[in-house]
């Protein structure tokens, strides 16, 4: 046994050597500050000790778990996330597949670069554009509706429109950028596989189904599993900017709620407790998704 291990080590020590520096990194910069999470159970006074002054048990957890507004925000987060994920997750894949079909590599590159643009426009400006476009008093959309005889709709203030606006603008802003990794995956597919399937007489559609998709499936799975893990963390800044008292019944999500309750008031303990709660949910989701993925497709993170 010992001998077997020694020979294993002898063969593979290079791998551990490579891991040395990254693990040192994780130990210092990721696990070093992790004790900060203690604040969830301790009282923190601004300017006082960084790790709090006294133990208060589950006080801060109770504070939000017993708050009905938190559960409204929780529900909103789940609904928005699930809608958002089921729409914005497949679109970049489809977009990447469509780009992949373009024959001219110049056109391909041009389309890709243009599709990245919105990713670089800061959220403040994007929300500004949305509000300008949808304004009930001088927006273009309401102007067009007016010509069709429809009364102006106050899109940005009505709870029933919030999710549409959020998801629509997310597609606009990130579809091209999120397609990057799938384009890279498509480029990594061994071209021999295509040649082989062509010899078998497969059409383009069949090739896509039987060669392309299976080849990029691991990437899709990994991205999906990780997206599930961040289910609770939506585009906080955008939601905050789109939030109004009137549309709050759908637009108040966990992060905006915690922002108002915890960070705006400097209650770090409260914010930490809520962060820990979100972390536990995210970690559980990823573990479950990983297990399911391993059973179904054989792809897993660990």
């Amino acid at each position, binding site marked *: 046994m010992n001998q077997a291990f020694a020979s294993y080590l002898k063969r593979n020590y290079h791998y551990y050597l490579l891991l040395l520096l990254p693990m040192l990194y994780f130990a210092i910069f990721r696990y070093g500050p992790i004790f900060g999470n203690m604040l969830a159970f301790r009282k923190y006074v601004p300017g006082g000790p960084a790790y709090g002054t006294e133990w208060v048990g589950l006080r801060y957890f109770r504070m939000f778990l017993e708050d009905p507004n938190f559960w409204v925000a929780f529900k909103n987060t789940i609904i928005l996330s699930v809608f958002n994920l089921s729409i914005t997750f497949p679109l970049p894949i489809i977009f990447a597949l469509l780009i992949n079909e373009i024959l001219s590599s110049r056109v391909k590159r041009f389309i890709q670069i243009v599709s990245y643009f919105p990713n670089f426009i800061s959220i403040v400006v994007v929300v500004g554009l949305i509000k300008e476009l949808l304004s009930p008093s001088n927006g273009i959309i309401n102007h067009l509706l007016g010509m069709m005889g429809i009364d102006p709709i106050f899109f940005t203030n009505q709870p029933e429109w919030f999710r549409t606006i959020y998801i629509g603008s997310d597609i606009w802003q990130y579809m091209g950028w999120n397609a990057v990794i799938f384009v890279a995956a498509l480029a990594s597919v061994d071209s021999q596989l295509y040649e082989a399937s062509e010899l078998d007489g497969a059409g383009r*559609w069949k090739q896509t189904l039987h060669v392309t998709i299976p080849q990029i499936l*691991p990437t899709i799975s990994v991205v999906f599993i990780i997206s599930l893990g961040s289910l609770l963390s939506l585009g906080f800044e955008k939601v905050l900017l789109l939030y109004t008292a009137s549309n709050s019944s759908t637009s108040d999500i966990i992060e905006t709620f915690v922002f108002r309750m915890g960070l705006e008031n400097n209650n770090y303990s409260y914010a930490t407790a809520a962060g820990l709660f979100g972390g536990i949910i995210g970690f559980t989701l990823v573990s479950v998704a990983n297990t399911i993925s391993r059973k179904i497709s054989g792809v897993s993170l660990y």
Partner: protein
Amino acid sequence: MLYRKTRGFRLFMVFNFCILTLVMLAIGFPFLHLLAVSFSESAAILGGKVTVYPIGFTIDAYLRIFDHPSIMQGFKNSLIQTVLGTSISLFMTTICAYPLSKKFLKGRKAFILIIMFTMFFSGGLIPTYLVVKSIGLIDTIWAVVLPFCITPYYLLLMMTFFQGIPESLEEAAMVDGLNPLQILFKIVIPLSKPVMAAITMFLMVYYWNNWFNSMIYLNSSKMHPVMMIVRNIVAGADLASMGSGIGQNDINTLSSASLKSAVIMVTMIPVLIVFPFAQKHFAKGVMLGAVKG
């Protein structure tokens, strides 16, 4: 290639063309609008007259940006941060992802869990600040490039790509007498160009756009990146004009809309310069056969 001649394929190409054109228009219009606004005079913008071409052409907004006393220093700092940060990140991510892509590696699962754990449980801003401070990195460039150099997400992506490389290639190299380090640098990395290019691009954009870490960890103005200046202009334009009782009538001679748009255009220039290069690498497919032979 035979399939290209079928009717179905031609129909698909028409459909594809329409969809992509639609996407281009949806992205292009707001972008052209911003471009037009950045070159228009305040009265025309506020009059709601500017659509996709400038009205009352002016470059005042751009002059205002380049008038900033430390804009050039900012570009320089951004460049240094981006190059240094991307190199370190790419290196660290690669040497971490490669061993973890080996399913036979003992302790692999534990390592991955340790890493994944940090995706969900971070220490928070103040504890992180205290760690960075205790190592003495505050106000040095390392505070911006070290604490965030491995992103678990990119790590897991790279790991997945490494796993996609056929075992047989590495085994053959092993037989030729190469050790795992040599295999990584001589075979695996060259074969992973598309994912390397994509992740390089992600990292560059991250470092280029990140003003927050610089704001928190760098005190000396001499080290501030251009995005910190940009941040101030984009978020501060509204605040400044509604000062705390002091008449700040000057700022309004420039529409904040045109200033913001101009800022977006300026910061996008480097992106436009770099991307076509990165693009080359993942637009082309990889020929595994070529290496095999």
